[in-house]
């Protein structure tokens, strides 16, 4: 493994960080609790964030997984609005990449240019009320009727749902076939029979809107099917390999920003006649935060490096996701503890990182599911 970034990778990182810091950082406002803002989305889209790993032929930047992760990391570090980075990454990795990898040429040509430049927004719809961690037990059904499929069912926790133009929807064509009975479709927002629920109220990631999705006799042209019938499970798993690595790069960036902010506070806040960072209990907690960040980051880079070489990386991706999400939650608690009272106050851009990190151990497969996946890969 080569630890040296190329000049072009460094340049992309610097540009992304500079843009994110210029537009989405600073003490002049609290970034955590505002709603989705399309002008913010468009600023990121102008950079190319919405199509980082989409081939250049379809309007993307054509980056590999490792470089993609590095750029998302830069946005996560520079952008204090964690929900914005989350929404962009959910769009790219869980909605756009399944189309890149499994759409036919006509569908890719029709949809990808708009999605890659962020003019259109994508969402992924798999989770259901009775199918969470057991995602492939889903009940939304698809049946073929001539040149269309008819979809019926309900999806929950659809990130970007309230603002999305295209939905990647997973439905079963034969429940008896379980994982191999699932088929994936791209459903346009204005398709008759598609209805959206009210935006979901959440504890964090507030600028990333989510809602339920209802499909009632929704007729989807066969040309909007991804892959073959029964391939939906594999398509979803492939999208999770992207999401569990490259989306979580945003949290690595957040951890770096959080650590820098907390170290600076520990160097300047004085108690007992000296900076609090000179108290061993404080310094050691900061070292633990640093250790979590660096270990999680290396796991991420290794997972992406393996994926770029076409090697199996199921365990490595899950280990990276597990390490990053658990680090985000624990280090966010530590950051609040080290800031004391102002860490608890909503005006100081500290406490929201905990609220934004709690869901990280839940979505894209809970920490328990990641451990299950790694255990299987270990032959257990």
């Amino acid at each position, binding site marked *: 493994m080569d630890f040296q970034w190329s000049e072009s990778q460094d340049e992309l990182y610097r540009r992304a960080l500079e843009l994110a810091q210029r537009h989405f950082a600073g003490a002049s406002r609290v970034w955590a609790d505002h709603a989705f803002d399309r002008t913010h989305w468009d600023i990121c889209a102008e950079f190319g964030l919405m199509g980082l790993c989409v081939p250049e032929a379809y309007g993307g930047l054509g980056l590999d997984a490792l470089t993609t992760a590095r750029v998302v990391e830069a946005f996560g570090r520079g952008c204090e609005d964690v929900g914005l980075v989350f929404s962009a990454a959910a769009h790219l990795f869980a909605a756009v990449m399944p189309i890149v990898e499994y759409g036919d040429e006509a569908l890719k040509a029709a949809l990808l240019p708009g999605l890659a430049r962020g003019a259109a927004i994508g969402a992924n719809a798999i989770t259901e009320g009775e199918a969470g961690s057991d995602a*492939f037990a889903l009940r939304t059904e698809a049946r073929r009727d001539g040149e269309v499929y008819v979809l019926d069912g309900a999806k929950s926790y659809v990130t970007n749902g309230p603002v999305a133009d295209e939905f990647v929807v997973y439905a079963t064509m*034969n429940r008896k*076939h*379980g*994982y191999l*009975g699932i088929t994936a479709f791209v459903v346009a927002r204005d398709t008759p029979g598609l209805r959206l629920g009210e935006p979901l109220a959440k504890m964090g990631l507030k600028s990333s809107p989510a809602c339920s999705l209802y499909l009632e006799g929704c007729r989807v042209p066969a040309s909007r099917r991804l892959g073959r019938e*029964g391939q939906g499970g*594999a398509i979803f*798993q492939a999208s999770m390999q992207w999401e569990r690595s490259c989306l979580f790069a945003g949290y690595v960036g957040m951890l770096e920003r959080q650590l820098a902010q907390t170290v600076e506070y520990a160097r300047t806040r004085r108690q007992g006649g000296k900076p609090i960072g000179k108290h061993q209990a404080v310094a050691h907690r900061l070292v633990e935060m640093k250790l979590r960040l660096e270990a999680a980051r290396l796991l991420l880079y290794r997972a992406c490096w393996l994926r770029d070489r076409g090697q199996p990386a199921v365990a490595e991706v899950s280990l990276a996701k597990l390490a990053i999400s658990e680090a985000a939650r624990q280090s966010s608690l530590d950051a609040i503890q080290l800031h004391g009272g102002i860490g608890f106050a909503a005006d100081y851009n500290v406490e929201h990182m905990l609220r934004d990190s709690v869901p990280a151990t839940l979505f894209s497969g809970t920490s328990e599911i990641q451990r299950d996946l790694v255990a299987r890969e270990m032959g257990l």
Partner: protein
Amino acid sequence: MSTSVAIEQTLKQYVAREILDGKDIGLDADTPLLEWGVFNSLEIARLLGFVREHFGVVVPLESVTAEHFKDLRALTALVASLKG
């Protein structure tokens, strides 16, 4: 023993040992493994790894379908065809 019979026996032993944990369900070539939930997503992923390591063949994604994984007879035919 023909190649197909040997492949089927190896796959049967794998399923009995690794997935069914030795439980006797009267496993034979036509046991509906997919319908009975024996083959879920995790087990199919593990099975693909076993097929890769033991038989030296990679099952292409387009062949990971219910048609090929419904029972041991279908799976045996798939592995045999990939081995050429």
